[in-house]
């Protein structure tokens, strides 16, 4: 039954949906330089909107996110590096604003834990393998004697 729907209606709906995407886009900032624009997009996607917390600055429609995007834009235009901008944000809002956490003394144990766990795993595995090979060796000798 839907097949009988006129083609113009289907096209109309498609175009309307596409327009929705454009109209509802949160961030329409355009920087003059494509390289700056690329950095702007990476940064705004990597910084958290503090009000909505699970959205990035780029995706959040709230006022504060717009203010912080403006800040990112202005600092990029002023020639700041990505690291400088991230540090500027973290100095005000804490590391929580960074979706990709930085290494610090406070979270060193968290970064180091996988390596420590891997080391423990390797030691345990090595000991198990050594014990089993020892058992195998023990098994073989009496077998040889009995069988021989």
């Amino acid at each position, binding site marked *: 039954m839907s097949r009988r729907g006129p083609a113009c209606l289907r096209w109309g709906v498609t175009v309307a949906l596409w327009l929705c995407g454009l109209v509802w886009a949160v961030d329409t900032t355009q920087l003059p330089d494509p390289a700056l624009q690329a950095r702007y997009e990476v940064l705004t996607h990597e910084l958290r909107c503090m009000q909505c917390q699970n959205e990035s600055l780029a995706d959040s429609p709230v006022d504060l996110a717009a203010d912080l995007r403006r800040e990112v834009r202005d600092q990029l235009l002023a020639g700041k590096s990505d690291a400088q901008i991230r540090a500027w944000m973290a100095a005000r*809002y804490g590391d929580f604003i960074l979706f990709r956490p930085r290494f610090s003394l406070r979270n060193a144990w968290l970064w180091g834990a996988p390596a420590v766990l891997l080391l423990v795993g390797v030691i345990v595995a090595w000991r198990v393998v050594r014990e089993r090979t020892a058992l195998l060796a023990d098994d073989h000798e009496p077998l040889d004697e009995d069988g021989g």
Partner: protein
Amino acid sequence: MNRFLLPLGIFLLLVVVLAIGIKHSPDKGTIASPLLGKPAPQFALPSLADPSRQVRSQDLKGRWYLFNVWGTWCGECRAEHATLLQVSRAGVLPVIGLDWKDSDEEARAWLSQLGNPYQAVAVDRNGRTAIDWGVYGAPETFLVNPQGVVVYKHIGAVTLATWTHEILPRVTAPATGS
């Protein structure tokens, strides 16, 4: 025996670590400010009462003050207003307001209607100063010591309990430093 002791030990260690984590985890939704123990951000903004004058952070050095971020668009700010009036009446320290992204007329109407707890209100129309203070929602309140260091931050409406248990003890304690 050793075969069971080791996993049990690891399990108990895990329980202890997780218990510490749960006990010390901050309230959901509140984020510790990196500003604590650091100098309060500098600002010089037009005064709400008289836009030709400025409210400047450097003029506040040398004494305790409460820095309260509010706006007439903020519902919780209305809820905390009575408490701020009481705090102001207590006369222990001045309350400095930051009117965040607000209309001056509405802010003045709000203060004449509900009473004015602020010694001065700085107008932050574009929100830059609020960002410097790491504000992400109103109301937020900071306690700044005479050395100009932020010693406490409260997110959400200040209540009398906040005042008596968190703010007042810090102000009256002799020479706590930061």
